[in-house]
């Protein structure tokens, strides 16, 4: 039972972060708060992958001349780290484009609230 808890408590923290991000996207009315929720969700996914790649008693995936390269149980799995580097940079680019779109919406409609925005778009289509 304690081995189950020690091995699985990390997944529950990541799912709590995912639920907080999803709450921000769905249930908040300001557009900037929705973008913040999306960013929290992305960070939770990256944390899940990077921490699943660890091994007990292993070191960073940089070759140590004392350990050699033959024993693969001494180095942690390097493949999810590489994939998550790509995911982090894509997240930054997505946030930049989202903020540029928010600035364009502010210049056109002068409001950032979701329900007011839908009313204005219905009455004044452009």
């Amino acid at each position, binding site marked *: 039972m304690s*081995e*189950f808890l*020690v*091995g*699985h408590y*990390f*997944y*529950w923290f990541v*799912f*709590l972060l*995912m*639920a907080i991000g*999803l*709450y921000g996207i*769905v*249930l908040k009315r300001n557009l900037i708060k929705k973008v913040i929720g999306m960013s929290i969700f992305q960070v939770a996914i990256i944390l899940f992958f990077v*921490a*699943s*790649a*660890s*091994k*007990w008693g*292993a070191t960073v*995936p*940089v*070759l140590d001349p004392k350990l050699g*390269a*033959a024993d*693969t*149980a001494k*180095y942690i*799995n*390097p*493949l999810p*780290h*590489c994939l998550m*580097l*790509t995911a982090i*940079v*894509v997240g930054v*680019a*997505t946030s*930049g*484009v989202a903020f*540029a*779109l928010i*600035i*364009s919406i502010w*210049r056109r409609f002068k409001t950032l609230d979701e329900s007011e925005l839908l009313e204005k778009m219905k009455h004044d289509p452009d």
Partner: protein
Amino acid sequence: MKVVSYLILAAFCGLLIYASTGFPNRGDARAVYNRPASQAGTPNAPTHYIQKSKEEMNTDNMVTTILADYRGYDTLGEETVILTAGLICFLLLRKEKEKNRHDSK
């Protein structure tokens, strides 16, 4: 309406926690993605990257060789994504300045 949203969020969280009981322990060296060989006996991809990184590329850091040479095609697509994001911000926001100047004339 808001109560239904909160209930659906709680159901999503409960479903994820129920699914997490089937995961292997974190850090287990005998998990399926951490084993040295796959179930058919063929070598696993991270095993090849760890063992052959120094002799094929003369490089100590395994993450850099995966990012730049073994999976270099994905890094090429990702750099195109970064450039596209920069061009989108340029096109969306710099045109406003010229339009404001034309309107005020």
